[in-house]
């Protein structure tokens, strides 16, 4: 059988849960293909991995597709995975009394310049008409620096955000899942070459992945346990991750849907804010050739 190599940006991020579910529920097998999962350090690395020929299908935001096309890496989003920043939250230490509007002139921690958290921080600046310093502290430095007071607030990803909120160390002052306008935050991406050479493999892969999403929605307990195992987290946090992100993911992934171009455009606009110069037209970023038909477990 054909093997499809799936590239995932970081382990404790919902795409991993999807892909793992698809593997464990043997959805790829049902489609007659095999899958090999590789976890990368973050979105950019995953994209580089695909460009280097080490991954066939990856999950990443539209901005990277756009940037890649300008750099000679031709790829498109074939399926829409999420239309919002679920689980992403602007947090301050529990004892802090700061509100979003008070952040003017303060320091806000992000993972890396140009990353998803940076884009959200920039959006906050623009949307709330305030100005603060974005301080890249890396994924591992986010919470430590927040707790130590080196930054006044931080843009935290899930399920870390749930975890620190739960432990009472920090609290949320802005939930991007609801605050930010719905845009296409992430989609499944393949190289144009690959889509042309093996369209059936791509089709089968998205089928399996969206089958996994269906399965997860239908099987709360199994999924919560999987998340808890994979992320090495208490079931309680895993349940929050399930309710607040997994349940919000796109279920059909159709790039042909009417709302998609605008959502992609918005996503690119946000990226432009973050310093992305390599913008290409929306129609170059997406492909409507594949419409996922979720595999039945």
């Amino acid at each position, binding site marked *: 059988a054909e093997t499809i190599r799936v590239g995932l940006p970081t382990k404790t991020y919902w795409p991993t849960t999807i892909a793992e579910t698809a593997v464990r529920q043997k959805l790829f097998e049902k489609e007659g293909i095999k899958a090999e999962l590789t976890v990368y350090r973050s979105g950019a*690395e995953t994209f580089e991995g695909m460009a280097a*020929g*080490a991954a066939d299908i990856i999950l990443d935001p539209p901005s990277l597709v756009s940037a890649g096309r300008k750099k000679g890496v031709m790829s498109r989003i074939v399926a829409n995975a999420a239309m919002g920043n679920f689980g992403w939250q602007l947090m301050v230490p529990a004892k802090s009394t700061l509100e979003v509007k008070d952040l003017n002139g303060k320091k806000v921690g992000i993972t890396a310049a140009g990353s998803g958290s940076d884009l959200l921080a920039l959006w906050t600046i623009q949307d709330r008409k305030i100005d603060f310093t974005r301080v890249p502290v890396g*994924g591992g430095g986010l919470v430590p620096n927040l707790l130590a007071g080196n930054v006044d607030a931080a843009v935290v990803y899930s399920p*870390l955000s749930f*975890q620190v909120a739960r432990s009472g160390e920090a609290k949320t002052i802005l939930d991007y899942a609801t605050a930010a306008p719905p845009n296409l935050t992430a989609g499944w991406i393949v190289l144009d070459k690959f889509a042309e050479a093996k369209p059936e493999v791509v089709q089968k892969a998205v089928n399996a992945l969206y089958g996994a999403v269906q399965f997860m929605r239908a099987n709360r307990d199994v999924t919560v346990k999987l998340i808890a195992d994979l992320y*090495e987290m208490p079931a309680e946090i895993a349940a929050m991750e399930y309710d607040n992100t997994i349940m919000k993911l796109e279920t059909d992934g159709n790039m042909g849907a009417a709302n998609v171009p605008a959502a992609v455009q918005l996503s690119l606009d946000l990226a432009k804010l973050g310093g992305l110069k390599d913008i290409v037209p929306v129609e170059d970023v997406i492909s409507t050739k594949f419409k996922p038909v979720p595999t039945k477990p």
Partner: protein
Amino acid sequence: MQATLTIRLARAAIVIAIFALWEILSRTGLVNPRLLPSASDTLVTLGDLLQRSSVRTDLLVTATEVLTAFALAVPMGALIGFLIAENRYFADVAKPLLFFAFSIPKSIFLPMFILVFGVGFAQKVGFGFFSTIFIVIMSTTTAVESVKVEHLTVARSYGATRIQTAFRVYLPSMLPVLLEALRISMIFNLTGVILAEMYASRDGIGHQIATWGENFQMKQLLAGVVMVAAIAMTFNELIRWVETRCSHWRT
């Protein structure tokens, strides 16, 4: 013999002191225990982690990659370093170039390794090798340059071939410098492999550590760091063992 005993005791005392300090800092809350879990907690976590077969497999994978990269980088680096030291022409051509290559953060080149090797064993070993070889070359060059001319003259007068000179004069006189170099190289090697694993991986301990770090799982993170440090220290001890066996002629 007695001296070595006291030194051993002193060393043990220092190790214990470090752990005690760690424990105290964390327990008394001088340092936020969420940021620095106590030594005992970390060790307990370490024990738990080692129980997991997945962690053991990861450790094994990493150790294999590290050793392979090391076994490739050291002889090759030593050879190139030796050639550079021995051959002025080669040195003039290569030395500055190698130095520049050495001064660039290697992680920039990680994608290139994926381009060439894909993701997997070869890529990790390749990057580990790449991170190590420059320092081996540079250290070997240094070591060669510290050899005494009069000893070379003696060997020459007895008609020693190049190989004989290398093994019978260079090697023993270089040994102290060389062993130190090996030590440093090992650390570079380890860091290289772990960076490669963090970058893209399906297994290996570096990958685990990165995840723990990003999820603010401090106990696991520290336990992971202790594991990696333990691998490096074991290796260190190995080199020290060689060192004490070879260094009796030094006063």
